[in-house]
């Protein structure tokens, strides 16, 4: 299996370091599980109408330690519901990274990305070449390679299919 390259526009640049992603839907809404309800709350405070601007495959760009705090799932569930395909950030907070990778959501560590890009830019994440390309700016930045298990999890589409795959492999070895 190989990872599919990500190709999309930058839907938003979260420039701040240590960004708490619960703010995306509002901390008071983290117990909401209905996706339409959550999607309607996305960025309501800082960019009303944001949802309507997202196209399937769009990406978010984040600063250093993106996802710091208590990163609950609703924010990125809502973003995925809108069509967001992944986040490219300077670096990720480990709890956020673990949680969202287990959802099969692509997180790309790419130092330098915040300064290099703006909202609306086209981004290409080339996993094989380990680069994030910004064609319109004739820029290409290195991305931090995934570990074998992280890659396996993304390829499988998240923790559940990955665990099933590993269980099947283990069974194949003993049979």
């Amino acid at each position, binding site marked *: 299996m190989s990872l599919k390259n990500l190709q999309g526009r930058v839907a938003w640049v979260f420039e701040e*370091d*240590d960004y*708490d992603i*619960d*703010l995306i839907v*509002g*901390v*008071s809404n983290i*117990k909401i*599980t209905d996706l339409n309800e959550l999607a309607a709350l996305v960025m309501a*405070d800082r960019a009303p109408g944001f949802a309507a601007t997202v196209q399937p495959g769009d990406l978010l760009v984040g600063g*250093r*330690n993106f996802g*710091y*705090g*208590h990163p*609950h*799932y*609703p924010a990125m569930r809502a973003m995925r519901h809108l069509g967001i395909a992944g986040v490219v950030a300077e*670096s990720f*907070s*480990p*709890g956020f990274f*673990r*949680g969202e990778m*287990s*959802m099969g959501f692509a997180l790309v560590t790419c130092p330098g990305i915040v300064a290099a890009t703006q909202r609306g830019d086209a981004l290409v994440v080339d996993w094989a070449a380990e680069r994030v390309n910004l064609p319109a700016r004739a820029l290409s930045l290195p991305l931090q390679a995934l*570990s*074998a*298990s992280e890659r396996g999890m993304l390829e499988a589409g998240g*923790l*559940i299919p990955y*665990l*099933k795959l*590993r*269980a099947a492999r283990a069974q194949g070895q003993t049979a």
Partner: protein
Amino acid sequence: MPHTMTEKILARASGRASVRPGDEIEARPDFVIAYDFPGYTDVFFREAREEFGIDKVSSPERFVLFIDHMVPAATPKEEELHRVTRAWGAAQGVPVHERKGIGHQVSAELGYAQPGAFIVHFDGHVSQLGAFGAYAFGARKGILEGFVSETLALAVPPTIKIVLTGTLQPGVMARDVFHHMVRVMGPASCAFKAVELAGPVIDAMSIEGRQTICGQAMFLGANTMLIAPDARTFEWLQGRSLLKVEPVYPDADAVYERVVTIDVTALEPIVVVPPSPANTQDLSKHLGLEVHTGYLGSCASGRIEDLRAAADVLRGRQVKPGFQLNVVPTSQAIMVQAAREGLIEVLAQAGAFISSPTCDYCFGRIATMADGQRAVSTGTLNTPGRMGSVNSEIYLCNAAVVAASAIEGRIADPRPYLLGAA
């Protein structure tokens, strides 16, 4: 070969003679711990059954569930979630503890926090069991692997050693030390690493203080944080043991990725300023700022020494009229101890509103702030909106600062009260 505590614990849990940072291992948790929360436990139960066909978890004695959020329930939906949790526990033979306190504390009280144990939870604040020498890790969704398999796949993290030297000044508490570590080292400085904490400050520190510090490891980015057990640890654990494992200690020549020494002698009480737990600043910079509400509780603070500190400040004094001071002991056992010591009486006479243990004050489910209100809090996090309106603010600080601020209605220095100068 010399090893860190982390390496020794993960080697035993994975059945290997030794492990090194970066090794990809399959480790068997000694305990799988969770509290019920919508989108977490209810989903894990369903996914284990529907996706993996697991009707019964393997070795249910390794599992324990807590009902500590949404206690008491305020809506039928919340109570329904708790009912699902109780039913799952009963069907699986897994204990479900409720109304005993915040799970991370009660886990320790019940004997799950054994030195040398490997423990997994979805919530990272479980790292506070590291205060007893356990490797306790918040795997988030990854805990599901513990429900459907005997082992969890993980990479052995590098270990960073933090040595705390010097002497704490009066009025400076464990959580000031932790926030100072974030200030000195940076909020992502230990990302994806294990931290082992040592030094004379730790040696002299109470178990409660160690729990406070270890429980917030995530705000340094760390997977977890642990402290080698000592006489104080074993004394605390007397009569509380659910697991027979050998305690582990770091080898004197263990290899750390980094050793950081932080002297705390000059440390003053701090406040962590919104919007992020990364913003540690000296209390003295913020004295006099008007505050409307105070929260003393949470899995980070709210233990007996926090209650004692607050009572020392408030004894014979009054909370400013109009100020809302909420005091929530972290567990029932702590509440009983506080009652026995007369602390409840002191706090209630001063005008504190005292609740039975619950997580709910920490995330604004109750005692919710309106626009423009500002809290001093010993909770875990100061994200705008965590305790109510997104236009309210949370200043994190130690229990004595909460108490002093409650008297003045402004962010206040507790030291004059503690030293009898106020």
